[in-house]
């Protein structure tokens, strides 16, 4: 697989092994492509053909099994499991995780949990088992406990923290979601979308300090991606929310005048950029009406 090869090129070249590799490396969810090219790579639906690289064959079989589960094709998944078991036996942890996932897909939750608990007993930091236990958890309390258990073992996992942020948002705990998203932003500081999400969580939690943070992250998002409409609308909304909070603040609270000036400028900046983007579109009149409410009196 050369550096210029993208998926359409590899598909066209019928380079089955590299199609699978590309999908695995880029973490794409393309179960139909994987099962089709997997079968072509390994000699039809029995998947019996050997390759010169045995580990590549095993990795391909694992990938095809997971794609088969995505398509509810349990027969194909079982074929993959049998082919893998012939080579490695039934004891390796990686095989047992795959087996447990097949049980999950076949709705045998208890069977899957037995395997995950066994694996965690011999290795309490088996991250895959902890992840799958989180996926199996149903009640909110169980999900929170399972995700906490995972993150305790893997505190640097941004994806885990992102999952925590989503879970907390679902629960209505936007303060907790902000905490989790801060960890994600640490790992990916130049992703504008993350700054937008973090800003939105702070703005939803509200309060003077949170609204200042919301404004800063929205401004960062606009700086990273100047045409991002969600960031621009968000900038107008959260800066305005800050100004409203200032207007209703008690006289005892010290307000930074410079901060107020900045907020006003950001509302105007966001509104100006949005009007430019929507000019000529069907939505222009309504966007203009909406934004004039924010910029009135500034």
């Amino acid at each position, binding site marked *: 697989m050369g550096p210029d090869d993208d998926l359409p090129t590899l598909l066209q070249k019928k380079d089955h092994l590299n199609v699978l590799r590309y999908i695995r490396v880029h973490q794409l969810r393309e179960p139909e492509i994987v099962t089709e090219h997997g079968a072509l790579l390994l000699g039809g639906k029995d998947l019996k053909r050997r390759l010169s690289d045995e580990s590549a064959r095993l990795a391909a079989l694992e990938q095809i099994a997971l794609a088969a589960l995505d398509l509810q094709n349990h027969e194909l998944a079982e074929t993959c499991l049998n082919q893998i078991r012939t080579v490695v036996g039934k004891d390796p942890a990686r095989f047992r995780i795959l087996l447990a996932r097949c049980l999950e897909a076949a709705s045998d939750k208890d069977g899957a949990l037995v395997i995950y608990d066994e694996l965690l007993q011999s290795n309490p930091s088996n991250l895959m088992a902890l992840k799958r236990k989180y996926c199996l958890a*149903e009640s909110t309390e169980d999900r929170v406990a399972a995700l906490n258990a995972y993150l305790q073992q893997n505190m640097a996992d941004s994806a885990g923290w992102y999952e925590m942020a*989503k879970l907390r*948002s*679902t*629960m*209505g705990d*936007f303060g907790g979601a902000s905490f989790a998203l801060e960890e994600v932003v640490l790992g990916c500081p130049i992703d504008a*979308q993350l700054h937008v999400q973090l*800003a*939105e*969580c702070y*703005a*939803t939690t*509200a309060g003077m300090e949170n609204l200042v943070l919301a404004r800063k992250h929205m401004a960062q998002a606009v700086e990273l991606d100047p045409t*991002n*409409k*969600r960031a621009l*609308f*968000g900038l107008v*909304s*959260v800066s305005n*929310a800050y100004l409203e909070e200032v207007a209703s603040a008690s006289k005892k609270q010290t307000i930074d005048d410079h901060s107020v000036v900045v907020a006003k400028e950001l509302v105007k900046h966001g509104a100006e950029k949005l009007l430019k983007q929507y000019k000529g*579109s*069907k*939505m222009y*009149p*309504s*966007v203009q*009406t*909406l934004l004039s*409410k924010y910029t009135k009196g500034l």
Partner: protein
Amino acid sequence: MTDNKKKNSVEVSPESFVSMVLHAGQNPTTVVHGLLLGSFSGNDKVVITKAIPVCHETPTKPLLEIALGIVSASADGKDVVVGWYTAPERLTDTQPGPVALRIAANLGSDDASKEPVLLVLDNAALADCLKGDDSSKDAVIKAFGKDFGQQWMDPLDKITVTKESKARAAAASAFSNADIVIVDLVNHLEDDGAADWMTNTALTKHIAKVAP
């Protein structure tokens, strides 16, 4: 003043039904949320004429503010905001979740005759509907009004979908039609195509044909 509060009856137009069901069906792995437009009729009836898809994630305050702001700014004076709809993330989940409940409460005003309604979709019944399976007895949409605890958990039993069997057929045929794509506010804000999220011409044409 009687102890039993008069419950609202809810009427859902075919196009709103199909729009909500498709919004959920086309975003199968996430929660979906949207606004309901229509009118309050008399003291006890809510008529829903349009369902406007807002997001396929948990909505935040700025997102809600933008959605309400643009919808109010485009208002033609006929329809007002009458409620909120949501479909839970998981297949077996039937609860709207705290965020949807909070939004429904915030949409309300002091006018007791204009109490917003919260519609919650039943994912399993929805899946059957999209497959064209009409054997299920479970309703695809359940309605809730304000209860004594000021939450929106009081079930409203009188909910009807106008021309229901045609609406269900329209939903199933629209689902398999690749040209009918529900664009919500988040799609509109994040995609460069700037597709229209408030009106869906392809869907309107389809409804006019299948459920006239």
